[in-house]
């Protein structure tokens, strides 16, 4: 098995490319004398970031907590729904159009309704928005995973005389795990984005969203981008943790390729 013999390739190359891109950006801003309110330079963003680290940290905690709760709720509901849909195929047929519709609901339309339902001063609406954004990919991918047990494996279980529960435990569930994690990986970053966008429509102030818009309203785009950087880091943390979880659960398998 090819170990990290290509470690320099997998780590150094992307880092180098990132550094090059940032350097080009800084060069462009300086050489073309781009005003800060049009496009801030990476240096000014880094300065603002380092001077507001504590504020970015506390804001990230708020947004991150909402995203995490949304991720957990959405993932659990998605997995259960996928299991039900596999066991009772009729529910899948009935719910397919609903799921398709739910996947395209714009947050802009949904969030105000949820805030009115659950209270404009509570975090609940944001968590539900994140949960919905998580539910869709987890449900669809888990459903696909539960369905793709290979016929030859199923025949083997029948030949062994396994009960349906034993067959499920031995073949279907392990086969579905990689697909579940594909869904979770997509969902992890979606949870952060949705939780952040949900902050614009109500709820307690303290997350990254409000900080970004307040900075932008005074054209302080360096500060706004500093908070955006915080949001990016938060999304990456979620993604990496999900990736790590997948490695933990299936250590002998290479991480499933997927988006």
């Amino acid at each position, binding site marked *: 098995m090819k170990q990290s013999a290509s470690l320099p390739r997998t780590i150094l190359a992307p880092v180098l490319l990132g550094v090059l891109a940032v350097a080009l950006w800084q060069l462009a801003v300086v050489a073309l004398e781009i005003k800060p309110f049009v496009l801030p330079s990476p240096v000014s963003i880094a300065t603002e970031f380092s001077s507001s680290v504590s504020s970015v940290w506390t804001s990230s905690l708020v947004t991150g907590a909402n995203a995490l709760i949304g991720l957990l709720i959405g993932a659990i509901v998605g997995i259960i729904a996928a299991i039900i849909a596999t066991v009772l195929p009729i529910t899948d047929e009935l719910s397919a159009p609903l799921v398709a519709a739910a996947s395209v609901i714009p947050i802009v339309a949904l969030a105000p309704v949820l805030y009115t339902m659950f209270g404009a001063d509570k975090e609940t609406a944001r968590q539900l928005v994140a949960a919905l954004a998580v539910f869709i990919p987890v449900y669809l991918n888990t459903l696909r995973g539960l369905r793709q047990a290979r016929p030859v494996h199923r025949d083997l279980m029948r030949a062994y005389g396994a009960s349906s529960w034993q067959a499920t435990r031995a073949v279907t569930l392990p086969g579905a795990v990689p697909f579940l994690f594909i869904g979770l990986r997509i969902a992890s970053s979606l949870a952060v984005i949705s939780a952040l966008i949900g902050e614009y429509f109500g709820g307690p102030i303290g997350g990254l969203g409000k900080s970004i818009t307040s900075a932008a309203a005074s*054209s302080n785009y360096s500060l706004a981008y500093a908070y955006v950087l915080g949001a990016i880091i938060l999304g990456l943390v979620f993604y990496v943790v999900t990736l790590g979880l997948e490695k933990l659960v299936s250590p002998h398998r290479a991480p499933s390729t997927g988006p």
Partner: protein
Amino acid sequence: MKHSKRLIVTGAIAAVSALALAGCSSSGSDDSTDSASGELTPVTLQLQWFAQAQFAGYYAALDQGYYEDEGLDVTILEGGADIVPQDVLSGGDADYAISWVPKVLGSIEQGAEITDVAQIFERSATTQISMKDKNITTAADLAGKKVGSWGYGNEWELFAGMQKAGVATDDISLVQQAFDMNGFLAGDIDAAQAMTYNEYAQVLESVNPATGELFTPDDLNVIDWNDEGTAMLQDAIWADSAKLADDDAYADQTVKFIKASIKGWIYAKDNPEEAAGIVTAAGSTLGESHQLWMTNEVNKLIWPSTSGGIGMIDEAAWKQTVDIAMGTKNETGATVISEEPPATAYSNDYVTKALDELKDEGVDVEGADFTPIEVTLKAGGE
């Protein structure tokens, strides 16, 4: 096979480069102030929000032909939640912009070169309203309550008032307020942010579930930041500083624009019903009685003028705004600006010229005899 593949690839590269190069050609707006005989100069005005009676003067000036009289063909661009008017002005996509002073002070510190050439609204319209039973009558009463604010740079008077009263942001529950009063009416927000000319009326147009009738002013307590001493200057006309200094035609155009806009505001003062109708016809989604309320309330912010004429920038009020902008911290500890704004941040030169011309024509620019009308609000603002 290989030949055709090479041909296709070469053709594709050529096509893509051609498209890219065509797209790169600068589509610079050709705003030549070529005032050939009888030709109107195109001028773009960027508003701070959607079309509503907050901007009645400009719509009235357009409708009544005041801009045309000055030789200007004005296009009014509506604003929105994500549109920062001063950036549109700085980017060259508008000739003038309407924005609040604290928001623009921040932009100026970030390098935007713009000047306040006419302070149309003399008084602030931001208030914090609450239901009577909450007993929130001053900023100090906000401690321990759920306080709503829209953010987007509208929150500084609130924070200044709290800071002055010794209420820290940790003492309150700060809630992100949506641009409607649903959270306030549902009881999720104790003290909500409301403009006298808009959200306050939205509450008065809603039915009080306790009585079955519309809410009345007696049901509400209002904290007025003008009274608390932490009001900041709001709607003003902003122009490009560099062009004002270098381009004489732009400077003259600015005086003409201010003069025609002021005539529009005087029209709105004398004919509030017609002005409300003009704004509704310009595409506002708010109802007519709501627009009339808005016109009337906005008139109260302008008239009577105590600064020497509508649009004159009062030194004391400017200083108060700058002091608050430098000294007030928001919930992350940031202030609007960290140093004094440059001298080009505002100028009374252009508005003085415009006012002098109007006074010579016998126009009353102070409106000392202005009396607001009585507006009856209807449910939903229709």
